């Protein structure tokens, strides 16, 4: 079974530029997550999708970050404009599904991440 795919693996940009990351979850996984992992810290959830709807984006800096999952499969995370403090690894994870309205306790599977350096 293929894992979570992310691209690019590395990105270097200057501050105030924009950048986009792509994620393809494990086939059949309805729930998709974006995390930000700053060096020396644990991952922090930015946004969670259930199919193509947003479940939680309370920690997403909406003035500069946006994310979408238009067809309920692939997702993109965008930063515009980037700041120095956005330098981090951006992780995508997926988990199986909800069963109707019942939340299923699911394990999250992580992709390799995109390492962003903002200069």
């Amino acid at each position: 079974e293929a894992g979570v795919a992310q691209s690019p693996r590395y990105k270097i940009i200057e501050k105030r530029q924009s950048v986009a990351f792509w994620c393809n979850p494990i086939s059949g996984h309805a729930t998709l997550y974006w995390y930000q992992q700053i060096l020396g810290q644990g991952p922090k959830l930015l946004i969670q999708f259930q199919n193509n709807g947003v479940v939680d984006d309370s920690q997403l800096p909406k003035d500069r970050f946006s994310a979408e999952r238009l067809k309920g499969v692939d997702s993109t995370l965008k930063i515009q404009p980037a700041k120095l403090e956005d330098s981090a690894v951006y992780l995508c994870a997926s988990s199986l599904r909800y069963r109707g309205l019942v939340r299923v306790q699911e394990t999250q599977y992580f992709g390799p991440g995109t390492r962003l350096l903002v200069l």
Partner: protein
Amino acid sequence: AQSVSQHNHHVILSEAASLELGCNYSYGGTVNLFWYVQYPGQHLQLLLKYFSGDPLVKGIKGFEAEFIKSKFSFNLRKPSVQWSDTAEYFCAVNVRDAGNMLTFGGGTRLMVKP
């Protein structure tokens, strides 16, 4: 909101030594608990998880963890580490029946000397 603390940021052990990594969480309700590992150059992988039942959970590669509800702890253990266990270890929790969002600890970087 829940939080997770991993008190050991860096641990250095010799091969065959025993390992215990601490994890404490703060939340008064029911939680699910996880340990993830990140080997050098690789992505986060699940080591073990606790949802319910036996509080002593066995995972891959000889790791185990014990959920002690009264202490809000979920410490990771391994009786004899190997050089290949060199990695960063993350404890994580989510609140049961409140979504699947994980809250991670800051991680513990383990180095095993051959």
